[in-house]
């Protein structure tokens, strides 16, 4: 009786220790670089034409209503989509998106994410971690 209960207690504490040890692989601090990007838009950027800041997965636009940024990470499985004349298309499983990021075909479950833009002098700051409702455009 005593032997059996100590056996179970040993098993229990080992299990507990194991679960505790499994906490280790769950990273607490992520190594990702800063999500805030400083962008200077070319003077000549035409409405409806995407500007892709070098090294970033986003497309920045300017039209009469202001400046806005759309993430180019596909909401299906994370491939980087290409801006086209009509909107965006994903190379991986053929999702297509309209110019406002809504899905027009393919497996993507969600519209593209609109990113938060704020003015900073002549430049713009886009925060890849902050999502804003589609249609949010910012003026200087």
């Amino acid at each position, binding site marked *: 009786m005593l032997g059996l209960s100590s056996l179970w207690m040993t098993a229990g504490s080992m299990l507990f220790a194991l679960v505790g040890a499994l906490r280790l*692989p*769950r*990273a607490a601090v*992520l*190594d*990702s670089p800063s999500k805030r990007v400083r962008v200077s838009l070319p003077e000549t950027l035409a409405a409806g034409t995407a500007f892709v800041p070098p*090294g*970033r*997965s986003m497309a920045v636009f300017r039209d009469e209503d202001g400046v806005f940024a759309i993430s180019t990470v596909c909401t*299906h*499985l*994370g*491939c*980087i989509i290409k801006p086209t004349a009509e909107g965006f*298309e*994903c*190379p*991986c*499983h*053929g999702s297509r998106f309209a110019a406002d990021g*809504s*899905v*027009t*075909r*393919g*497996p993507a*479950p*969600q519209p593209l994410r609109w990113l938060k833009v704020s003015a900073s002098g002549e430049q713009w700051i886009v925060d890849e971690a902050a999502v804003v409702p589609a249609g949010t455009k910012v003026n200087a």
Partner: protein
Amino acid sequence: MKSADASGSALGAFADNLRAAPRRIREGAFRGGAPHTDRTRSTFVFGNVFLHLHSVRVHRWSLRWWTTAGLGIASVAAFLITLVTGVLLMFYYKPYPDVAYASIKDIHFVVPTGRFMRNIHRWATNVMVVTVILHMARVFYTAAYRSPREFNWLIGLALLVTTLGLSFTGYLLPWDQLAYWAITIGANIAQSPREVTDALGVTDMFDPGGLQRLLLLGSDTVGPEALIRFYLLHVMILPLGLTMLLAVHFWRVRKDGGLARPSDADERLGPPAQTYPVFTEAPAKTYSLAAVVRGRTEAVNRGPENTLPSMPHLFYAELAVTMLTVAVCLALALVSDAPLREVANPLVPENPAKAPWYFLGLQELVSFSAFMGGIGIPAIVILGLALIPYLDREEVQTGDWWGGPGGWPLVRRSIAVGLGSVLALEAFAIRFGWLREWFPAIPQLVVTFVNPATILTLAYGAYSVWLVRRHASARAGALGLFTCFLCGFLVLTVIGTHFRGPNWVFYWSPADWPRH
């Protein structure tokens, strides 16, 4: 005088012992003596830690070529090849982004025999995946999973999953475009339960997808953390797990009474050839396992219960299959190089971004719905496979190819059904598109649960239920379902591999792909 004598004899004994040492080491290593006779061979087999995975004698049925087609042994052989070549690759491979790519490039272009070893490793993994799947099919079609072997069937499924895990983790290691984007997609498939939790609006409270992805990548992007995790899984955790599962697998084969065979196997085999077995020495009479029974009984000149000594008969067969596997891997490695694209670029996906071929069927399903194709349906398939031996409790024709009600004609019809439905659905979806194109505003949950992938699964399931009722037999349903599953896997894999081009658009041939 006396003392000199004593020391002389002590020295003499020392010299004698020294001279005897090699012989004693030999005798200690091979306790039963040289394996020249059936009896000493038996002792040899069960006295040797590696060989005693085998029983001392095997039934003649198990040795028939078509009982197993050698597929299990071929899988082990391929695994051993990946072990040897993989350890060699580890001498130079460095698991850090970009450095990893450079090290693979070194292995490929600079290291002596490096390219050859890498090719063999890559090809052996492909061979292993093929033989493991075929081995499973063999076990299924000979109904060899039935009681008492249900549990070993489950161990086998774990082995299949581990094998696929090994190749998936290995695929990232070269850190080229192919690797990077296949793993990005794979990691996001792990995250795809969000497709459902998002649609239900509960992701903030309950996010198993996000957790899976975080555990796999150790970060929110595919970077150094992900690479070291995949490396650890690939060279330590999964190979060790696979080895342990293999030990259990083999041990169960013996404890479950050797390979499954029909109850009337002895009659069907007929009497063994007169010339066999060849006794090179009169065996001691014993009834132990190692016994070779001799006497004026029916068993004269054949082993107990129609068996043959494992050594040499089983070992010859195993060696032959191993040599064949090695030869195939070497030949493939000589004619075809393992691919290596440009270094990984997180900004520009490979187009088309394709996983290893055995995952392209899944990728085709994923192109309908990430969650159902990548997690839902695979889980259903694994669960279904796991349940087979617990639903099929029949006994008729265990050990016979296509055994069970309906037999080969049923399998043939199921091939037609399986191929027909998957081809029809794919053709329809490729020609006319799917719900999202017709009704852009349709809720995501509808697309997740109503798409060609789920419809195909349902159709196969319904067909199998119909078979169960029609033949009043779970085995008939299983035969139909498994056959359909194989057909679906085959067709989707071929479509994903050959007929999908840039943007996952259907092309009749890669020659038609647009060039930029």
